[in-house]
């Protein structure tokens, strides 16, 4: 049943370096933006930037770009479930009356 494998994709050092550069730049941007008071939007912006960073890590460092579609689907499902857990808890918390 052993399966001699398709060649593995090797992440080039140039790509890895570029991704690192982007991640560092995004970190700087995150810190900079947090200094500006945008009210509620601050959380949204911070989370969007964090999500972008994590997508970079997953896509390149974690090789998701070179995996089969199935892997992408299950990663999506995992985060979807987490979002559902958080979101549905808010049906309670957000609509609770003070007394």
């Amino acid at each position, binding site marked *: *049943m*052993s*399966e001699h*494998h398709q060649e*593995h994709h*090797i*992440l*080039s*050092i140039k790509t*890895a*370096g570029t*991704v*690192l550069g982007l*991640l*560092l730049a995004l*970190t700087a941007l*995150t*810190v900079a933006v*947090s200094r500006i*008071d*945008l009210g509620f939007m*601050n*959380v949204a912006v*911070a*989370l969007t*930037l*964090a999500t972008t*960073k*994590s997508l970079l*890590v*997953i896509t*390149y*460092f*974690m*090789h998701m770009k070179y*995996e*089969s579609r199935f*892997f992408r689907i*299950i*990663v999506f499902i*995992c*985060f979807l*479930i*987490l979002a559902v*857990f*958080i979101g549905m*808890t*808010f049906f309670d*918390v*957000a609509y609770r009356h003070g007394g």
Partner: protein
Amino acid sequence: MSEIHKDYTGAKLGMWLFLFTEVLLFGGLFVLYSTYLYKYPQDFHTGGKQLDVFIGTLNTVVLLLSSFFVALGITYIQRGEKKLAIRYTLLTIIMAFGFLINKSIEWSAKFHHGIYPNSEHLLEMPHGEQIFFGLYFVMTGLHGIHVIIGAVVMGVMVWLMKKDNINKDDFVKLENAGLYWHLVDLIWIFLFPLFYLVL
């Protein structure tokens, strides 16, 4: 037995499934974080201001670099450059220690100010800040434990590479260890803005 079939994709699938459990383990805490942020936005803001943005940013950079080094380590082992692979994996471990030292400086500063779970100073703070610091200690603490585990795993990987158990043709263990390390980084990517930059 398991040596008979080397199922590369299977091993990676198993690792990813394990990573999902890690995501959801922290997920439970993110559920708590988001609801408490909704409940006490002002106190979270005040709490966040008491954390050191510089140390937080520094640690983010440290972890990003370490992730980069792991990725390089995997690239080198795939190319058969064992020495470089070991060197970058060791660099990852050094980064992990750097992160932990930074973290411990930060924590001990907090302890010094009388802020630690159940401390008298903390109990006098508004409810929202107590929760903020409660979450801060629990989440960064759990993350710290993962960093320690990750560093140990990387240590084992170095040893296995030296033994030539991990090599050009069989590197799935290093790749899976790398996946774990990236996940630790990934979680920090979210913890950083949620605690140090919260507004």
